[in-house]
């Protein structure tokens, strides 16, 4: 009789995380939903919204500065997606297609904001979800530092480190080469790590 030793799964390294899986449990089901939505069934599109809105929000939130802008971007993106649904090929991944629309909507909002109120950007960095640790200096300083990062670098670090997108996926989302996404991540991490270093070893 052979004894099988069960070992626990190795703990993730620092800086790694479990990748969020966006693919629905039943892809055929999603394809059917897309086909129904293309026929004009609103309930089917509503189900697609239900399934994808969290991830869409995460993509938008990585690009825009505020929660409110992320919400606007998600809404605009779903509206765009609904209007362009007849052009979508049901055999493609709906999520990937939608994320590109969300990314465009978010970048559009960012461009408009930059033109409108570039000066008071740090003050607009706010989240409606307050928690007790929000007054933590690290978080506040990090938030300010993130707001000062170039949009692309901020988007790349959040999409990669928070949302778990790969470099190639980030490249597609933001319309940049994979290598650029990789170097942007490096620069963004360096900038933020320098900030953390200052906080850890105050003079």
């Amino acid at each position, binding site marked *: 009789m052979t004894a099988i030793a069960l070992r626990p799964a190795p703990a993730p*390294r*620092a*800086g*790694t*995380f479990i990748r969020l899986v966006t693919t629905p449990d039943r892809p055929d089901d999603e394809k059917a939903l897309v086909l129904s939505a293309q026929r004009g069934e*609103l309930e089917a*599109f*509503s189900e697609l*919204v*239900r399934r994808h*809105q*969290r991830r869409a*929000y*995460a993509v938008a*939130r*990585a690009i825009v500065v505020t929660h409110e802008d992320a*919400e606007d971007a*998600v*809404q*605009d993106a*779903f*509206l*765009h997606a*609904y*209007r362009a649904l007849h052009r979508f090929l049901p055999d493609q991944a709906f999520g990937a297609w939608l994320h590109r629309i969300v990314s465009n909507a978010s970048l559009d909002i960012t461009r408009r904001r930059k033109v409108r109120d570039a000066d008071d950007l740090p003050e607009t960095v706010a*989240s*409606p*979800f307050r*928690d007790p*640790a929000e007054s933590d200096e*690290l*978080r506040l300083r*990090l*938030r300010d530092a*993130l707001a000062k990062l170039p949009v692309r670098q901020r988007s790349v*670090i*959040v999409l*990669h*480190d*928070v949302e778990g997108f*790969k*470099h190639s996926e980030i490249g597609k989302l933001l319309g940049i080469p994979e290598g650029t996404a*990789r170097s942007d*991540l*490096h620069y963004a*991490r*360096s900038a*933020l*790590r320098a900030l*953390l270093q200052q906080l850890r070893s105050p003079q």
Partner: protein
Amino acid sequence: MIYDRPSLRLVPDDGDDGDGDATLTNTLRALYAAPESAGYWSALERRIMDRIARGETLDAWWSVPTQWARLGLMAAGFALIVAASLFLRSHAEQRQMAYDSVLGPANGGPTLAIRDAQTERQATINYINGR
């Protein structure tokens, strides 16, 4: 044989270049955490579907009012007609010129030059004197 090129290095495909910082990552995740309340998401879904049901259009910077679009189309159509008539006219003129060059001008044959006899005589004298 594997050559070690100092300017290039292999990195894992998952994109973790090994320069991540756990504290930084955790703080970022806390900062960018999506709302967890189910009520929030159902409200957002409702807002999206309401906008779709209302047939709301998105005003993009390239969108123009319908009236302006109609005027623009009419102007473009008129410009197209003018351009087409000019093209046809110049084409007809070119064709006529091509016929003329092959068949010759409609009024008259080759022009004959009559030499002046006096001039020829003078030229002979000049030639002899010059020698």
